[in-house]
């Protein structure tokens, strides 16, 4: 019975892992299954999520993933406004979206320089178009995040493509459903903390953007925004950073 359960759970691990050997140890040790299961499942999920990058590369991955989040979120946000008739559909806007698609594709493939150039092109085209300034800021911050040099780090995680499709407002922070998504991201940090780090970095950028949108003399507005939102942003970075440090300290 336990052999079949363990063998099924070991399929969580990628093919290269010593599944046979682990099964042998599990059966030889003969411990209560409840004691073995949590670490077994967590180990399998971590191995699937790509847990073999060193700490520095994980932060680099998070920065590139944050750029991906900002690019897709900004493009989708403009798309919603165009669909509702709030903004016009122009050739310039179509070119911006084309640049975003190129940048996102390059990030997924791990080509940093083409990604940075495409994000920069999206920024310049969107600024020249001048209709959605929040998206302009999003593209510029994505391009800045892509300036960080380092080894080739493809960002292949479907969750990072789906998350920015959610209608999140950095100022209002949206509905309880989005808070549940935030909680899920934080819980997922036990498996892959890079998603929490990326969300935290992207929220940092969105938060700066929200502050920049406030009237220059509105110090009270900035203060209120900081008090109510810095904690929200920080929790992703703190949780992600702590998990990364704990997992990858020897």
């Amino acid at each position, binding site marked *: 019975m336990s052999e079949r359960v363990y063998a099924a759970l070991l399929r969580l691990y990628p093919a290269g*892992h*010593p599944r*046979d*050997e*682990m*099964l*042998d*140890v*599990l059966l*030889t*040790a003969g*411990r209560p299954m409840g*004691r*073995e299961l*949590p*670490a*077994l*499942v*967590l*180990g*399998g999920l*971590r*191995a699937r999520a790509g*847990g*073999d990058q060193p700490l520095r590369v994980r932060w680099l991955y998070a920065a590139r993933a944050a750029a991906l989040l900002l690019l897709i979120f900004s493009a989708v946000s403009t798309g919603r406004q165009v669909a509702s008739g709030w903004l016009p559909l122009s050739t310039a806007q179509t070119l911006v979206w084309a640049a975003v698609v190129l940048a996102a594709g390059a990030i997924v493939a791990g080509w940093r320089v083409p990604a940075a150039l495409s994000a920069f092109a999206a920024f310049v085209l969107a600024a020249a178009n001048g209709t959605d300034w929040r998206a302009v800021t999003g593209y510029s911050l994505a391009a800045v995040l892509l300036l960080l040099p380092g080894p080739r780090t493809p960002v292949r995680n479907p969750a990072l493509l789906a998350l920015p499709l959610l209608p999140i407002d950095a100022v209002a922070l949206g509905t309880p459903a989005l808070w549940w998504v935030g909680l899920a991201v934080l819980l997922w940090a036990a498996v892959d903390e890079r998603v929490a780090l990326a969300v935290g970095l992207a929220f940092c950028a969105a938060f700066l953007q929200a502050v920049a949108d406030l009237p220059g003399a509105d110090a009270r507005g900035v203060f209120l925004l900081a008090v109510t939102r810095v904690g929200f942003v920080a929790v992703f970075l703190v949780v992600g950073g702590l998990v990364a440090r704990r997992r*990858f*300290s*020897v």
Partner: protein
Amino acid sequence: MREPTYFILAALQDEPGHGYAIMSRVAALSGDRVRLATGTLYQALDRLTKEELVEVVREEVVNGRARRHYALTPDGRSALRAEAARMAAAARVVLQPRALGGLA
């Protein structure tokens, strides 16, 4: 260095060992304080192998299942000894304060 890592490396200081042997030695060396789950042990072995502190030295088939034997690398041995020396120095501060002079 975290405690489970320390005891895994210590379990390999005298001779190589396979997964279950390492798990048993860790429990014995730590007085049953560190009892590694199999998933935890293999996450640690995976990480230590990538960091070149531990290496696979032999593979065999027992009861139809592959079994690998792990050993310390020279870097792993150095890291273990450095950590032991650090902890011994820290322990001396408390256990033999007079020997250090000026603290009594």
